[in-house]
């Protein structure tokens, strides 16, 4: 009911005009105020992996760099009193030792931080709940026409899950997408760089609660939509879905973040407000601390999708549309000086020809990904 409400109102208005038009413009406000606040981004699971706690500071609205909170003492303590110290692997990134620390379902964990200026912070002690396995991940092809008549095609990634014990109840999902792509041109010596794999981490908030259901069942849950605005679906596409089991407080935190991000300024939205997490200053409980220290059991499921499964009408950009070649007589020196790169030289009727390409990325896929085939990849 938020953004769509606005579109509908617009549509009603436009009925009298039958003209398309956009009333949403990007806006860069002039904000002088700034609050410098500690941001905690931490995650402990029950999977044997390196856990990271990322400590940073808030930024001004128009800033693009990051300010990391470096040199802090970061520890996690469980309810049995075991203390696990994190080491700073890069500025503001504190990692655990996966050989000595693995989260255990049923235990509670608390984060403790001491910054370089001697201020102590701690999180609430949160229970690690085991996550049930994901029953299945599947897709649904979808095509829709946007208000400006543009066609959007793609696949919805959906899943089913359930907890027969009815104990999980609150879920959150993250994912890592990986897709294969190729460059439009080949160059001698670059044959191994024709096919590559790119990856992206999820940046959307996807949560669910089954509290209102008689059984702890997640049915046909839409996780995200892979659309045709990128080259993701032109070859084989894969995604690793991570399912986290949340506590009720962790779920409420995510719910608030989600609500805040659904704001489209519609008058049906609540006024935006600060969302603080489970970390606070030991001595000053009123100091705001942003972010969250999440303790969750995790289960994973990998999903593959082949381009051939798409209908033949599917269209998507290769993202190499900017590439072009030129075939010139001679060595093509003047082009080389302009930055063009020789792809191939050949003789035709004793005349030397040179084929040049405008960017190296057009024959070298490693500019955007890795040419190392992931070991889980299937063909």
């Amino acid at each position, binding site marked *: *009911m938020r953004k*769509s409400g606005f*579109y*509908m*109102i617009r*549509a*009603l*208005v436009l*009925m*009298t*005009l039958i003209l398309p038009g956009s*009333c949403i*413009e*990007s*806006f860069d*406000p002039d904000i002088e*105020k*700034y*609050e410098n606040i500690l*941001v905690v*981004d931490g995650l402990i699971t029950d999977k044997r992996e390196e856990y990271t706690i*990322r400590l*940073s500071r*808030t*930024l*001004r*609205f128009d800033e693009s760099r990051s300010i990391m909170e470096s040199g802090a003492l970061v520890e996690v303590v469980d309810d049995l009193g075991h203390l696990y110290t994190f080491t700073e692997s890069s500025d503001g990134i504190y990692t655990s030792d996966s050989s000595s620390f693995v989260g255990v379902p049923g235990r509670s964990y608390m984060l403790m931080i001491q910054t370089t200026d001697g201020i102590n912070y701690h999180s609430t002690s949160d229970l690690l709940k085991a996550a049930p396995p994901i029953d299945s991940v599947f897709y649904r092809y979808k095509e*829709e*026409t*946007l208000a400006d008549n543009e066609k959007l095609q793609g696949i919805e990634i959906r899943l089913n899950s359930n907890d027969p014990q009815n104990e999980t109840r609150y879920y959150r999902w*993250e994912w890592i997408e990986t897709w294969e792509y190729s460059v439009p041109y080949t160059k001698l010596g670059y044959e191994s760089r024709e096919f590559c794999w790119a990856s992206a*981490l*999820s*940046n*959307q908030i996807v949560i669910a609660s089954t509290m*209102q*259901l*008689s059984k702890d*069942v997640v*049915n046909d849950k839409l996780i995200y939509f892979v659309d045709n605005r990128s080259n993701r679906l032109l070859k084989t596409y894969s995604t690793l879905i991570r399912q986290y089991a949340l506590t009720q407080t962790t779920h*409420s935190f995510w719910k608030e*973040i989600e609500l*805040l*991000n659904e*704001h*489209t*300024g*519609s*008058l*049906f*939205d*609540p*006024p*935006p*407000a*600060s*969302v603080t997490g489970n970390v606070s200053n030991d001595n000053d409980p*009123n100091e*705001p601390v*942003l972010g969250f220290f999440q303790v969750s059991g995790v289960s994973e499921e990998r999903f593959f999708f082949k381009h051939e499964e798409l209908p033949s009408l599917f269209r998507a950009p290769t993202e190499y549309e900017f590439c072009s070649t030129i075939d010139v007589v001679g060595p093509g020196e003047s082009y080389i000086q302009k930055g063009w790169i020789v792809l191939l030289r050949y003789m035709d009727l004793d005349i030397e020809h040179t084929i040049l390409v405008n960017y190296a990325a057009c024959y070298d896929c490693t500019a955007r990904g890795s040419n190392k085939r992931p070991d889980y990849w299937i063909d």
Partner: protein
Amino acid sequence: MRRVGSIVVFIMLFANHLQSQENVVLKGAYDSLTFVQFADSLYSFEQIRIYYTPEWVREVVVLQPTGVDKLDQVLKNSLDPFQISWYGDSGGRIYITGSTRIKTELPERFFMEGSGNERALVEIEKSLQEIEKEEPPAIIPNGKHLVTIGNPARRIETELVVLSGIITEAETGEPVIGAVVYVEDLQEGGITDAAGYFVLSMSTGRHRITFQSMGKKAQSIDVVVNESGSMDIELAEEITELRGVVVVADRGKNVSGVQMGVNKVNIEMIKQIPAMMGESDILKTALLLPGVQTVGEGASGFNVRGGSTDQNLILLDRAPVFNSAHFFGFFSAFNPDVVKDFKLYKSGIPAEYGGRISSVFDINTKSGNTKKIAGSGGISPVTAKLMLEGPIVKDKGSFVVAARGTYSDWLMHQFPSTELQNSEASFYDINMKVTQQINPKNALSLSAYASQDKFKLSSDTAYRYNNFNGSLSWKHHFSDRFIGDASIIASDYTYEISSAGNPVNAYTNQYQILYLEGRIDFVFFPNNDHIIKFGTSSVSYKLQPGSLMPLGEESLVEPVLLEREKAHELSIYLSEEYTLNSRVSFYGGLRYSLYRYLGPKTMFEYAPGPVELYNLVDTVTYGTGSIQNYQGPELRFSARYKIDNVTSLKLSYNRLRQNLHMLSNSTAISPTDTWKLSDPHIRPQVGDQIALGFYRDFRHNTIETSMEVYYKYINDIIEYQSGANLLLNPHIETDLINGIGQAYGAEFLIRKAGGRFNGWMSYTYSRTFIKVDGEVQEETINNGEYFPANYDKPHDFTMVTNYKFSRRFSFSGTLTYSTGRPITYPVAKYQFRNATLAHYSFRNEYRVPDYFRVDVSVNLEGNLRSKKLAHSFWSLSVYNLTGRNNVYSIYFITEGGELKGYKMSIFDRPIPTLTYTFKF
């Protein structure tokens, strides 16, 4: 072709006066012309010459109602109000004789003022008396000028007698509410009540009484009062309804009434104002009044003098309306075809009203035509509507039925966009009213209203809400000075959200509020200096705060049924309006309400300190009976001091209590907002307001000016914790916090009512602040400091103009300017889980750009032939004429991991609309 250069005086007694003019039928229509234009036109088109002195007729505007084509009648209508006489000779010439009357003969029941011919007067009185005896009370149609009340033989000089009566509309027989009845020689008067009833006391003898009401032709009647009696008056429309006239408050009442902070608007004005997408809208019209604001275009609800949207008592024929919006607030829930008028009380709220603390928005629907079957209909880009009215028993009973619906679903599906294809939005509303005069002492009226809105916005979730209101009232005249009114009122509001897209999660969620009221009101007029009102009301509230039910067999949704809430509110009131002398009058009222929150119900108890879940200590189950009582007096006071005949000062103070609160955490009212009763954790809101006003009229009360300042303080305003869950929350008190509100402002208004050019201009300076300072961080907003409310818009300027070019063609325009609404910007951003998020702290520190909009409409009435099947009416309106891109909102969201700012406007261009209306 002005034929008169000098004053022409003719005195021709007993000449063959109007004989020659009486049968002159005019071919053209001359309404609203100046007299000079009229004279010119008559010569050009009708070959009739008028001789006149320009000075005498400078202020005369020709009045020619539809259907009137006799020259005689037109002259009479136009000149009588100015007491200008005329004379017509056999040669088709008209002589304007100014204040000098030329008597040619005495037509039956026609008496010319100032003749000194006492003998003739006595004769007419005698003949009238005979008529009176046979058929009291006399119905005095427009144009009859002398009436005798009672038997002169029983007349006792200097004794005070009572004259009462009912004023009805000549065309429809409906009572005229709020008409001014004024005894000129005594300089005293009164106004008619909701049944058109008036009562005056006066000495015996001869008086000139003026009856006037907005939109009606004023009439002065010479009355010889011998003893107490009654006299019913029919007032004709001043100008035909289709063309409309703007009168905001009763003429002269601006200065002379004791009431302040009230705006009365009739339907003619509402229809005249350019309408968005062709739907005349009473709530949008109200927004043009000083002191009334909204957070934005398309926001349902309005804010009166710094009050929140739930603090307005919206009454439709006395029944409260809980959701006054169609289409998310783009249209209001009231069909303009059945609305007669509305009154908006912003301060000095009379004691008979209670329950909401900021304003009373009292909407009256029209009664049916008691003479003949009539109707109207119309079509606009979004809606179609039809209204039918007529007598049940001629002159005694009438009915009105009206329906309005949309065809927006069909229109939306004409667009290729998937989002619109999958969306639905429609509404309808139905109004009905039946009135019956049982006998002169008893009248019944029944009014009913039903509406429904349905929408589905490109998702699986469908919304529906329904209003059902009804009221039955019985009015009884115990005597001419004592009237009683008993009513039964019911309002039922329900909404349902249902989602069927995913069979496992499919659900319906329902909410209901049922309001039942019985009330008795009495008005007592001991004499002209006192009006005493008293009464009692008993309200029962039954709320179903939410139920969640599985939808379909596959659904695993577990039923949730929140416990019903019940409350009872008993109020009594007494008020008295007292006129001390011609300069000073007072209004004092006291209302006392006893509110009881009733069981059976399970309540949560919290340890001392913040009402938070971690403080929950106990669950107590109450049986039937009271769980919590709230009671208190509400004082209402107004006073008027008349500096001179056209200038006055007024002062008012009022306190109101509110026990029903809307829970709405959004900036504007949204369709899923619920209402909550005061309970042990949620205290009633109490508002106090003090207001001072200065009023002055110019040019025979045709130009009214006013200046009002006010200060308002509201206790226990409801605010919300961040992330508050208002749906299906069994311990909702933990998500609510109490705040206080403060508002102050000054309102300036200048208005010209009536005439070819009319309208108003208003400027308002107002501020509204809210403070929420709880015991703990989560119960505090903005560190416990005052922050501007969402609807705090300091400067507000409005101009409404109507200009009539001719009988058929008129122009209307409105201009609105206001400061942009407050908005919250992020003070920082941060990286979290691979995305950039915004951090907000101080609420409402910034503002969207200022708001400016101009709307215009031109109205064209069909041909002027009086005998035709239906009157038709075209209206072309342009909303947002300048195409200004008014910013509706500025917001920040994370898209693809990046934080982006956007500004949004709804209307970035002019929106023209053509509307067709017909009336038969």
